């Protein structure tokens, strides 16, 4: 989780990623962020997020994204 928060903070230093649950709904993340996140997650966690998992529900909070990474890692 720490690693993920670090990636997110690199994108937006001013956002409270630990608690924010509306990263998509409040338009905090944009398409550039999503593309960057996917690339960073791939390099840091060695987890490739497949296209069908790139949906709002998985990116709305750091928690949701982290559980996606864990799920994909186990598969």
């Amino acid at each position, binding site marked *: 989780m720490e690693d993920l928060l670090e990636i997110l903070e*690199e*994108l*937006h*230093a*001013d956002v409270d990623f630990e608690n924010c649950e509306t990263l*998509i709904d409040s*338009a905090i*993340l*944009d*398409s*550039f962020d*999503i*593309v*960057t996140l*996917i690339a960073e997650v791939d390099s840091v966690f060695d987890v490739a997020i*497949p*296209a*069908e998992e*790139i*949906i*709002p529900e998985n*990116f709305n909070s750091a928690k949701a994204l982290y559980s996606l990474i864990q799920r994909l890692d186990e598969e």
Partner: protein
Amino acid sequence: MKQKNILEYLEDTVQKLPDQVAYTDGTKALTFQEVFDQAQAIGTYLHLHNHQNEPVVVFMKRSPESIAAFFGCVYAGCFYIPLDEEMPKARMELIIQNVSPRGLICDVNTKKALENYSYQGEVYCYEEIIETKVDQTALSAIRERQIDTDPIYIVFTSGSTGIPKGVTACHRSVIDYIEALSEILQASSKTIFGNQVPLYFDACLKELLCTIKHGGTTYLIPKSLFMFPIKLVEYLNQYQINTLCWVSSALTMISGLGVLKKMVPKYLHTVAFGSEVFPVKQFNLWREALLHARFINLYGPTECTGMSCYYVVDEVLDLEDTIPIGRPFPNRDVFLLGEDNQKVTNNEVGEICIRGTSLTLGYYKNFEKTTESFVQTPLNTCYPELIYKTGDLGRYNDRKDLVFVSRKDNQIKHMGHRIELGEIELHTNKVDGVSTSCCLYDQQKGKIVLCYMGQADKKQILFSLKEKLPRYMLPNKIISLERMPFMANGKIDRVHLKEEHIDNLENGGKN
């Protein structure tokens, strides 16, 4: 008589296809008849309030209605300035100061936001002014007075001095552009566009004006879909969208995340891209997925009305190839000027220069910047003849097609947006606790990297920049430096910085 006003497109099409949807975002739609009626009502209203031959701001949500408002301004004999609800306040203020408009059209969504602005002129609410009874006599009188070199719009591009430059374009150059573009895109009444670019750039003329010329339909694709590629492709299929004119990075978003292997936008037959280099690897994924579609690379600066060069990609490309920008649009001359001020005809690098009707009128209320780039061509010493010097360097390949090489200065293309790195530096330097800064672009990763020296922390800088700059201009990485490298002449050594913080990182990360 030859066409002299862009509204003639709308007036012809509304006769033929009044009930066809012209613009829609998938939920709200306006037919050609509705666009026509609302634009005429707005034109009448502005006329009744004594607006003529002057800029009118359209500050509305990206919607079919905002497009009708653009045409409404033109009906009044005015020219529109499209502003976006997402534009940062400080930037909008700069634009308003530059233009000092007397009138502004807002909608119910943006009206509230206006209270925070220093704008002092009249505010008109779209929902109210479209109720105005159309005065045909007045509108005809305005039309009779209008000539084709009267302006239609001002759109703003990044300026290295920190002040955006307002590119002002007239009917003549826009008509010239749309006629040529229609042939290149093979647009017709069957063309269903999926618009991606914001309406405050001239890039959207492709969809907006080809639609009123031919009687097709434009879908304004919600911006949020560009984060979720599968949903985006589903949207394209749901509405049977067949033509795209997107920035390359939007296409890359779909192909790069592996979507085309799972789902194909099956109705697409024409895919135009541009504004930045399209990586061949990504392009090939698109080509393999859509074997029968036409792919067209477009190139052109806002200063020459939309696009000026095109290249229909009809061959298989190797990974090390660059997609050429190709040949000039009909009725415009695009050539390379060497350092000796002579035309380059061999394979050497020169500055891309453009000549012809497509040249816009210049930068609004900025004669100094206008005369720097719109200059007398050194190739003609007999009579006045302007060219636009793009600042882009290019060369011809073996097939005599033009290829983009690089910029002469610190302008970059990032996510399809044209950005002066100097504008970011200027605002960074104004932050308390920053002594100096230098902005770089990591081409390979598509990241804006800001290096700075001083006590300020990164968060503070980002906060401050967010108030001043549009989202797409914000640095993706901020590096605090103990010492900034300088050259003998006192200028920051960009090359050194770039080697240290961009090139090294890449090698370091991978080896």
